[in-house]
């Protein structure tokens, strides 16, 4: 038995080595690798927060960093988010590039003053003399059956605060690319990680992506939305956790004969007006899909921008499929809240089609 097992294992290992570049990678792993790669290349990058070192984070996104880089570069802090962010700011002022983890979305709120009054404004307050190359990682949004305070979509608080960049990947390769860009950025980045996507997988060649960074060969993703699925009849504008249902809805619509374009913003700040407006001018119809409660949200902003820029191309008002204006529901009720394929299709149906 053991000989057979050993032979199989050896074969599997060889396969893995050969096809490493083609193995499915999780979103979580892409994030971990992005940090590890950045830490290898730049020893001013440090990682800290609650439970990030020994435990590797409650989502294991920082798993292995302490083991590889030591306790000086990946360490646990006392349980205090304002302390974590405020200390990171001081470190960023003094030559380091800190990456901090907020354990869950709503647990970043104790740090809100540090984020809004200092992290966002220090560069401006000092007339550009003090740069803050720091990343605040925020696992966010629902879809994982989490209890209250563990599923907030808090991106609007940050996007509304001038001086913060806000990135939110929706794919495994963007998880790697955007996090590398966030770490490399001289501006503070609030990095919003859709936690329901942590365990999503894709066949991504991390080595190639890494090489792209090292050679500077990759285009920047910051401020560049992508057309996640091309189409001609209507545009779905989504980001982060809303991208998968948008894509699924486009797929379902295609079965009905409707060609729907899906745009994944990737970064909310800066915003890619060009890609969004070009799509809507082409299709003449748009639905914004987002998970956050909708009042005064990023979705509101997108609607406002699109109608300001594409008014004369629009055949129908820009619609929103976004969260209700209620606190995020308890686990057993969240499916009624989350933007579903059906709800997106219903919204598409209201776009005053002439057919």
């Amino acid at each position, binding site marked *: 038995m053991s000989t057979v097992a050993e032979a199989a294992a050896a074969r599997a290992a060889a396969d893995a080595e050969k096809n490493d570049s083609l193995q499915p990678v999780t979103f979580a792993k892409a994030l971990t690798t992005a940090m590890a790669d950045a830490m290898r290349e730049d020893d001013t990058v440090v990682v800290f927060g609650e439970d990030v070192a020994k435990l590797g984070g409650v989502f294991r996104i920082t798993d292995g960093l302490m083991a590889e880089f030591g306790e000086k570069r990946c360490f646990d802090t*006392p*349980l205090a988010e304002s302390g974590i962010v405020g200390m990171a700011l001081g470190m960023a002022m003094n030559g380091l590039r800190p990456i901090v983890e907020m354990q869950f979305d709503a647990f970043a709120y104790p740090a809100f003053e540090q984020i809004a009054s200092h992290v966002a404004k220090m560069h401006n307050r000092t007339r550009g003399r003090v740069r803050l190359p720091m990343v605040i990682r925020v696992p966010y949004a629902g879809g994982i059956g989490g209890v209250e305070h563990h599923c907030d979509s808090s991106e609007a608080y940050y996007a509304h605060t001038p001086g913060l960049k806000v990135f939110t990947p929706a794919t495994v390769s963007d998880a790697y690319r955007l996090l590398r860009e966030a770490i490399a950025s001289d501006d503070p980045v609030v990095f919003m990680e859709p936690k329901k996507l942590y365990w999503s997988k894709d066949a991504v060649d991390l080595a190639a992506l890494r090489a792209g960074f090292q050679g500077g060969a990759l285009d920047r993703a910051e401020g560049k939305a992508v057309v996640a699925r091309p189409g001609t009849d209507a545009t779905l504008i989504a980001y982060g956790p809303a991208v998968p249902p948008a894509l699924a809805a486009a797929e379902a619509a295609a079965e009905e004969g409707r060609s729907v374009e899906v745009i994944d913003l990737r970064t909310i700040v800066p915003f890619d007006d060009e890609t969004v407006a070009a799509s809507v001018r082409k299709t003449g119809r748009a639905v914004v899909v987002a998970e956050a409660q909708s009042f005064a949200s990023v979705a509101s902003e997108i609607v406002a921008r699109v109608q300001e820029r594409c008014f004369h191309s629009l055949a129908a008002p820009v619609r929103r499929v976004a969260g209700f204006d209620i606190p995020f529901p308890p686990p*057993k009720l969240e499916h009624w809240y989350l933007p579903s394929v059906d709800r997106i299709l219903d919204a598409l149906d209201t776009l005053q089609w002439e057919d």
Partner: protein
Amino acid sequence: MTIPAEAQEAISRFGISIEDYMLPVHGQIQILSEDGTMRPEDQRGSSPGHQYPVPSDDELLEAYRRLVVGRRVNDQNSALVRQGRLAVYPSSHGQEACQVAAALCLREGDWMFPTYRDAVAVMTRGVDPVEAMTLFRGDWHGGYDPHERKVGIQSTPLTTQLLHAVGVAHAAKLRGEDTVVLAMCGDGATSEGDFHEALNFAAVFHLPVVFFVQNNQYAISVPLAHQTVAPSLAHKAVGYGMAGERVDGNDIVALLAVLGRAVTLARAGSGPLLVEANTYRMQAHTNADDATRYRNEAEVKAWAAKDPLNRMRSYLRSTGALTDDVESAFAGDAEDVAQRLRDGLSAEPNLDPQELFLHVFAEPTPQLREQAAFLADELARDEQPGKEL
């Protein structure tokens, strides 16, 4: 020394000087040894002048009954997680003495502000066990009416509830009521800014709040030594002009004595107090956690030897109060509660999506009514046969 005169007066009635009252330089209070024997009065760790009245034998027997039920609740809930009946459960296995003492030290008109880990304390105070599980079952955020048993909603945002406790105490004080409020948190939670603000507000407004820290040595994976380098968490009281105390958190006798005294002092007008109980989180943080990543078996074993139930059982056996009959009656009580949990949590809850819009405000706004109608409409269409994609 600027502790208000009336507080100094109240404290001195207990025969303690203010300096001695405030500085927790002594070690922890322990009354029942780990082997289940009562310590002689002069070996309980108290400083001269401090009196910790030991509860009566009847009270101790009842406390033990609660411990047995509490342990069963913890184990039953952990089992219900494994069976998929609860989404998550932060067990207080090993901390039952703290849980039970927290509930028993209060009067009916008093208030308790618990954390997510304090379900056993919540139930011991009389909240229906199944209602207390609503949060972890995922049916709603909270299941019981806080006003009914005067128990705040179990808080997950750490430390924030201490301020609510302070406010409840302040309102009661302004009305001249003699309510005492027990405000609970963990060792990790003491690092949050709200801890500082709550203790300071309670001290400055001289409020009858007993802050009860269950130091179970860990905040998820982070051990106490990474949380603070203070000599003890009780020492944090000094900076607020407040008394701090340490107690063996696995000794229900000491807990009842120390918390009881703290509540009595607070009710008499001493102002707030801080009590740190040294205990241990015997299981992982929650079922989602893997404790082997950050602590070793030897440590867990060492604490298992200090188990709060065993100790109390030995003592009550030795006094003869705990007979086989009594013991099986207690086991029966525990099984009744466990049965109630199993039954209550196995029944499918009746969840109405329209409730999502009902409690956001006292009355739904026009916007919420519109959104509620949208969802109702969507669901109605879903139910129609032949609905097109």
